[in-house]
């Protein structure tokens, strides 16, 4: 069994129009910038994929990564908890112009819905959002005298994930708070594609320290020294770079 992929272009080749794509990361930490940019490259070359439904905690920052994906016009709908950032202009303009749909989900509910999708739990109850606008239209049930909102699982066709170490079986570790939504999205997507800083031999990762077991992963591509969204934005980077 060898889940390693030769390059980024191969890694994103299976993503087609209209798919639901989970993208890991919380802001820039744990965001698979190179996978996102490879997807933009494919769109610029072929016109596909487009009309994507993207699941991420945020809505991008600046003009790289998720913001660049939105700016390229590839995203029809965003499911997220916090579409604000230091420089959210790309999403904000499209959203206010009605060019992109938004499903706003409380952050803990978003995480739990994704986990539920991966764990075969079609629905669960949470106190979060009870009595608020975000609970409108959702079933409410009382347990032990307290009211809870029924929330549904969230699954995806593809997850694009950033990890730290990975082996050919798909076992993964993460870097610090770069973990965030990544392990959950691995569980919830039919196809999980992961960029890792280094591919190591099976057994190099302590079995106790595996965060995502390989069963949740379909493809692993090595991206040494991955870019950080924060660094790119401080350098005012734009993707793709304007032609000279």
């Amino acid at each position, binding site marked *: 069994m060898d889940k390693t992929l030769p390059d980024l272009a191969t890694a994103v080749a299976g993503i087609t129009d209209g798919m639901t794509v989970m993208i890991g990361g919380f802001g820039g930490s744990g965001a698979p910038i190179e996978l996102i940019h490879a997807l933009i490259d494919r769109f610029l070359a072929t016109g596909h994929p487009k009309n994507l439904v993207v699941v991420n905690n945020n809505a991008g920052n600046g003009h790289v990564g998720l913001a660049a994906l939105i700016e390229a016009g590839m995203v029809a709908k965003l499911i997220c908890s916090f579409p604000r950032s230091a420089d959210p202009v790309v999403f904000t303009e499209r959203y206010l112009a009605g060019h992109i749909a938004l499903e706003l989900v409380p952050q803990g509910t978003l995480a739990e819905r994704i*986990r539920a999708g991966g764990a075969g739990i079609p629905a669960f109850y949470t106190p979060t959002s009870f009595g608020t606008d975000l609970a409108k239209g959702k079933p409410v049930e009382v347990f032990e005298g307290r009211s809870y909102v029924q929330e549904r699982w969230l699954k995806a066709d593809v997850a694009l994930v950033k990890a730290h170490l990975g082996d050919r*079986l798909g076992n993964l570790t993460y870097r610090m708070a770069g973990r965030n939504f990544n392990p959950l999205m691995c569980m919830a997507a039919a196809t999980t594609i992961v960029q890792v800083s280094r591919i190591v031999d099976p*057994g190099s990762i302590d079995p106790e320290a595996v965060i995502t*077991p390989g*069963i949740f992963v379909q493809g692993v591509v090595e991206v040494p020294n991955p870019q950080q969204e924060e660094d790119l934005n401080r350098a005012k980077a734009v993707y793709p770079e304007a032609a000279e």
Partner: protein
Amino acid sequence: MTQKLTPTQMAWRAAQDIADGAYVNLGIGFPEMVAKFQPPGREAIFHTENGILGFGEAPAAGAEDWDLINAGKKAVTIKPGTAFFHHADSFAMVRGGHLDVAILGAYEVAETGDLANWSTGPRGVPAVGGAMDLVHGAKTVAVITDHVTKDGKPKLVQRCSLPLTGVGCVTRIYSSLAVIDIVDGHFVLREKLAAFSVSDLQALTGATLHLDGAVADLDVPAL
């Protein structure tokens, strides 16, 4: 009935259908033997409910570490690529549809795919373990079972008489006489021992055996 397959032979036959790289959970008992018969060049990855993926064979006697056991409480080993996780993550793998194959034992299997394998009725101490979870989620839920009971009664039936483990969950049966798929609420005979005719088999089966093209010989080495 003398020519029927042994449990070991049933396990061998089941093993032939497991693809390279498949994620597989083997139930306690007969199904555990499937791991021994992986065809050359193929390597399945075995999951055990109690939190190990990609474990290895049993250790030598005396070399057991009793923190490193499978769901049957037997000692196993790690190998390169093993991962440990807790029970909620383990059953996320099961329930969430991430396993390719689950192979279980059976008291009865119905043509509807219903399975009864956890309780022989209200007497004694009931115990279910992970069986009710395992029948949901895996792409193939297969059963290894004698074709008939010790008394010669069919175990493959129209409707289960014993308490159910799951409804409409079994997709394939490796019996001591045949390989049978469950398709749209029917038993479909795929392979049978050459010594048995279709009507012989039908007489030992509690529901109609349907044919869908040729029935292959169920050809298993002596072992």
